[in-house]
């Protein structure tokens, strides 16, 4: 224990000073952009759009958002230790709770602050008064802390329990959104009553307290598996952010997704190259059950948006919803594009292999577009019809991107040198979406 204290002291002594003011300024400036965009969009809201958001819709979206954040928190830990740290420190005769609590408190504080900021921005956009804004910030902060605490509590439970909670919360969220859509259709959707935020603020704090106690109690019982399970995803996520390349997450996510998949009987494929590849693609798509869930969830986006967004914007909303909806169906395309070894094994030309694996996302994109059509008036269908083109071009350009090069051509554009290949790598997926979105708004 004395040795551990000495190690900590040495570590503290070597810490580099952090320029907190610069960091705060950077966060303020970067966070300011989306806030300004949201405020600008809400200021330009067309007349005739429903201003009062139905309570069922608010609850549904909040629960879905919470389920998604909970899934991310559980996938990463939220309490983590590297394998080396476990071997040399946590695996020894130390009080694991006292060792892990400081970092857990930092995580709680961070997620609480994030929740408070997000809730504050939402309240500001909705035009809340100062008291309402302050109370909403308290609600957001409380829910942020609760979410991390619940994820920590679940970290000590079995995978089945975590999965059940994940499915349950997602199901509740989808049910509320569906209920909201139904009530809106029959004209019986009550909006959020004024007492919800004043009552919700103390309730959020009260809810956080037992959850924090539950999470804190769980920390001492976290074993090596629980503490190190999120390391690969955390490292891949860090690399993906650092190199601005989401593809770096792909392999880790695929391994996680399919590590629990049990196949009772291997399937045969029909003779003939094209038929066999398409049959394999179909089989693989059917096995990715999450793809169907994401597809249905994303399909709800244009219907939900129709309540609060002018009809003119709905094709653009559908386009943005189609990106995550179609992306899981492009797993085969991404794999074939990234793996020259697989292409060599499968034979044929590179282009034929890539085109065959474009079939599944193409079908998904068309189905999504057809499914989104009833969410908007018929005069917006021409703009909506551009959705498959935009989303498939985006998918193709992202899938066929070569690894990022940091030593390529540099061009001086008048405001400093700009790496051409790096810049194209970053915008090649976004560019077709931006172009399609612009066309959809113009048509």
């Amino acid at each position, binding site marked *: 224990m004395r040795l551990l204290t000495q190690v900590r002291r040495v570590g503290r002594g070597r810490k580099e000073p952090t320029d907190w003011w610069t960091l705060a300024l950077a966060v303020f400036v970067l966070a300011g952009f989306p806030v300004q965009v949201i405020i600008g969009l809400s200021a330009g809201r067309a007349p005739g759009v429903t201003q009062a958001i139905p309570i069922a819709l608010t609850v549904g979206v909040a629960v879905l958002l919470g389920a998604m954040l909970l899934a991310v928190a559980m996938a990463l830990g939220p309490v983590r230790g590297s394998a080396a740290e476990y071997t040399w420190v946590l695996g020894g005769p130390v009080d694991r709770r006292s060792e892990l609590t400081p970092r857990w408190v930092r995580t709680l504080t961070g997620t609480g602050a994030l929740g408070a900021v997000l809730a504050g921005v939402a309240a500001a956009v909705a035009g809340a008064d100062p008291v309402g804004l302050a109370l909403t910030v308290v609600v957001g902060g409380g829910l942020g802390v609760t979410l991390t605490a619940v994820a920590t509590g679940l970290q000590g439970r079995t995978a089945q329990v975590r999965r059940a909670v994940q499915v349950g919360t997602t199901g509740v969220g989808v049910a509320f959104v569906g209920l909201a859509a139904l009530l809106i259709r029959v004209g019986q959707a009550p909006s959020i009553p004024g007492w919800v935020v004043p009552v919700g603020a103390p309730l959020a704090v009260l809810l956080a307290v037992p959850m924090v106690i539950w999470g804190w109690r769980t920390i001492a019982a976290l074993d090596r598996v629980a503490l190190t399970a999120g390391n690969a995803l955390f490292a891949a996520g860090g690399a993906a952010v650092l190199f601005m390349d989401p593809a770096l997450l792909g*392999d880790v996510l*695929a*391994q996680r*997704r*399919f*590590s629990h*998949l049990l*196949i*009772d*009987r*291997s*399937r*045969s*494929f*029909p*003779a*003939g*190259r094209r*038929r*066999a*590849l398409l049959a*394999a693609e179909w*089989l*693989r798509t059917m*096995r*990715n059950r999450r793809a169907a869930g994401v597809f249905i969830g994303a399909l709800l986006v244009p219907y939900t948006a129709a309540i609060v967004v002018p009809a003119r914007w709905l094709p653009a909303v559908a386009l943005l919803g189609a990106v995550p909806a179609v992306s899981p169906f492009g*797993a*085969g395309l991404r*794999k074939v594009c990234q*793996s*020259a*070894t*697989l*292409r*060599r*094994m*499968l*034979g*044929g*030309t*590179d282009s034929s292999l890539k085109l065959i694996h474009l079939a599944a996302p193409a079908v998904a994109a068309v189905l999504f577009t057809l499914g989104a059509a009833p969410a908007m008036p018929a005069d917006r269908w021409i703009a909506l019809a551009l959705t498959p083109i935009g989303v498939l071009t985006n998918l193709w350009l992202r899938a066929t991107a070569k690894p990022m090069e940091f030593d390529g051509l540099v061009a001086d554009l008048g405001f400093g040198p700009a790496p051409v290949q790096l810049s194209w790598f970053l915008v090649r997926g976004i560019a077709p979406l931006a172009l399609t979105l612009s066309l959809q708004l113009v048509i």
Partner: protein
Amino acid sequence: MAEQPLLRVSDLRRRFGEHEVLHGLSFEVRPGQAIAVVGPNGSGKSTLLQCVMGIQRPDSGTVTLRGTPLVESDPAVRAEIAAVDDSVDFFPDLSAAEHLGLLAAVHDVPDADAVVRALLDEVGLTDQRNQLPGTLSSGQRRRLALASGFVRPRSLLLLDEPEQRLDGQGIDWLIGRLLDEKAVGGAVLFASHHAGLIDAVADERLEPAGPSS
């Protein structure tokens, strides 16, 4: 033994920075012939195989298949060469049997199901046929990789240390398989450290000289 070489490598050079790993290497592989690439770690065995596979581009020299420059992305080349090295990749959501079945189907293997069943039995993966690659042990994955090379028709088999993670029984199976390959006119180019495998299979040995400044 046929007259015309299947694979011809001429004056192959590959340099990494100041270190030249392959110094003007030339050789031929004919149908029914097996050539073992031998030498210590870092001597350029894998680099040579990767240059032949088209994974690495040599600094100079030529690699031809049936007299035509070898281009890895050419469908005809892909139909003739089966390669198994450390970079073998799998779909994460297809089982071991499905991988082999897919390869057999896309390469038009007749009675693919029976071929796959027999091969799974040969490599000892019958019990793991329904497992996904991510759930196989490293040794089982290696055997699946080897099976992926044998499940499809080929003229040239390229193997980089195929003995890796195989037990004694597995080595015996591999020797038998490679001898059968030669007997039906297949050509084999393989890198190996296993003296028994080399002695039993190789008609010639090739030793890249290793790095030099």
